[in-house]
């Protein structure tokens, strides 16, 4: 029973990290169809934002709480810059976008190396996140619980923004039918920029959260970006709830495989399951039902 509960928590925890990494991508890739290979580097930028803030402020708790919105801003502004300067010229050219953003990712990694050095650095967790909370005889690390809560908060906020705000309506309308949105008086260029800002900003928040799990380095994003794409593809393109279900499902699966085998073999098994799943259901977990495609 303990082992089961422990694996369940490990899966949820891994799922929440995957979800944070994939949530921004669910907007920029899932909604807009942009294959942005530099998404991981926006996470890295968020992580270094937390590092710099801690060096400046000193207090780990205050710096973390400031780093969350600031990481959003840093990630968002980097995304906005990328969208305005490069991606906006390449809509409907996915392969060019992939190559260019991969190049941008390498440039950002090198920039991080030049500024912060190649070795990984540590960001201290605040005192209130150190240690563990005993639940049903298990010790659940506070940092993991915090990341789980942060992921859920991000999903809820993003879902509410998409569902209830004018910006959300504009984003959903633009991704569904760009021409019709323009012809309805919506500036789709402005909407693209805002969508990219928000999606990249969430990546920045994810980066801040990752500083709680271990040391960070210039290649931090590389290790997450493939998993993030997997979550969005398995969840179903354009579906936020698909990303949520996929992130936690993949997290639970990976934790289970890791428990029974090794970390490397677990990854292999996970890929096998995903390939098999996409053969059966290429549209992903959640697909859209309408009477017309319009």
């Amino acid at each position: 029973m303990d082992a089961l509960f422990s694996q369940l928590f490990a899966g949820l925890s891994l799922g929440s990290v995957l979800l944070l990494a994939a949530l921004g991508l669910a907007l920029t890739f899932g909604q807009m169809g942009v294959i942005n290979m530099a998404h991981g580097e926006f996470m890295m930028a968020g992580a270094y934002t937390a590092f710099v803030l801690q060096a400046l402020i000193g207090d780990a708790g205050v710096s973390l709480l400031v780093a969350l919105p600031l990481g959003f801003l840093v990630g968002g502004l980097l995304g906005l810059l990328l969208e305005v300067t490069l991606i906006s010229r390449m809509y409907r050219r996915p392969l060019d976008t992939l190559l260019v953003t991969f190049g941008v990712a390498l440039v950002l990694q090198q920039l991080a190396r030049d500024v912060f050095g190649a070795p990984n650095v540590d960001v201290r967790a605040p005192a209130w996140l150190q240690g563990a909370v005993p639940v049903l005889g298990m010790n659940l690390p506070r940092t993991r619980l915090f990341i789980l809560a942060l992921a859920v908060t991000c999903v809820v906020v993003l879902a509410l923004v998409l569902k209830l705000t004018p910006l959300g309506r504009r984003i959903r309308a633009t991704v569904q039918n760009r021409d019709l949105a323009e012809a309805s008086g919506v500036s789709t260029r402005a909407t693209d920029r805002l969508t990219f800002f928000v999606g990249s900003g969430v990546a920045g928040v994810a980066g801040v959260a990752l500083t709680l799990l271990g040391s960070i380095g210039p290649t931090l994003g590389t290790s997450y970006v493939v998993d993030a794409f997997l979550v969005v593809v398995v969840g179903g393109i354009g579906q936020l709830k698909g990303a949520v279900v996929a992130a936690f499902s993949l997290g639970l699966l990976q934790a289970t495989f890791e428990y029974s085998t090794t970390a490397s073999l677990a990854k292999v098994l996970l890929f096998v399951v995903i390939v098999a799943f996409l053969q059966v259901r290429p549209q992903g977990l959640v697909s859209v039902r309408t009477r017309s495609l319009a």
Partner: protein
Amino acid sequence: MLQLRDVHVGYGRTAVVHGVDLEVPTGSVVAVMGHNGAGKTTLLRAAVGLLPVRAGTVLLDGHDVTRWRPHRRVRAGLAYVPQGQQSFGQLTARENLQLVADVQGAAGARRVDDALDLFPALRGLLGRRAGLLSGGQRQQLAIARALVTGPRLIVLDEPTEGIQPSVVAEIEDAIVQLAATGGLSVLLVEQHVGFALAASSRYSVLESGRVTATGAGGAEREADVRAAMAL
């Protein structure tokens, strides 16, 4: 209100519209008719800015809007209802209207109400996803959405195509009513020649991307137009 002067439009290397002149005076209804592939939809898409004009000029209230993006033309009073009952299928009917009302401020809510008065059947469907509405309901929603932009000219591309006859009559009535009482100018592409002529004050026949006949509207002109279109 709207003037197209020597407008040329095409896709890639293919030229589709060749030097079309067309004018929609304020308060008038102008019908454009022609066979499938004559370039009607291409012409309308260029007029609203969804296709670039290769040569020629589009004037709105005397201003050259040829290089304006579509949303800017919409805000200047030019609304567009595209072919095929297009709506944002994953948004509810209410959200389809609210999306447009968002940028209108207080006037937006009033216009949503006015548009729903024109199509009262939509009131009971506001919470339903537009993709789950019938073709006729979606077309009513599309026209309502265009009206919420507060247009002075509405461009309608085959508004009754593929819709059940009972709803066709409602849509035709709404168009006539809008033009008569709303002071709205209308540019109408319509396969249904009888209705298009009855509703319009002028007509143009388009063939292979060129205007081949033009004249005053009115139901009595149907025989002339059918002859011009070789129907």
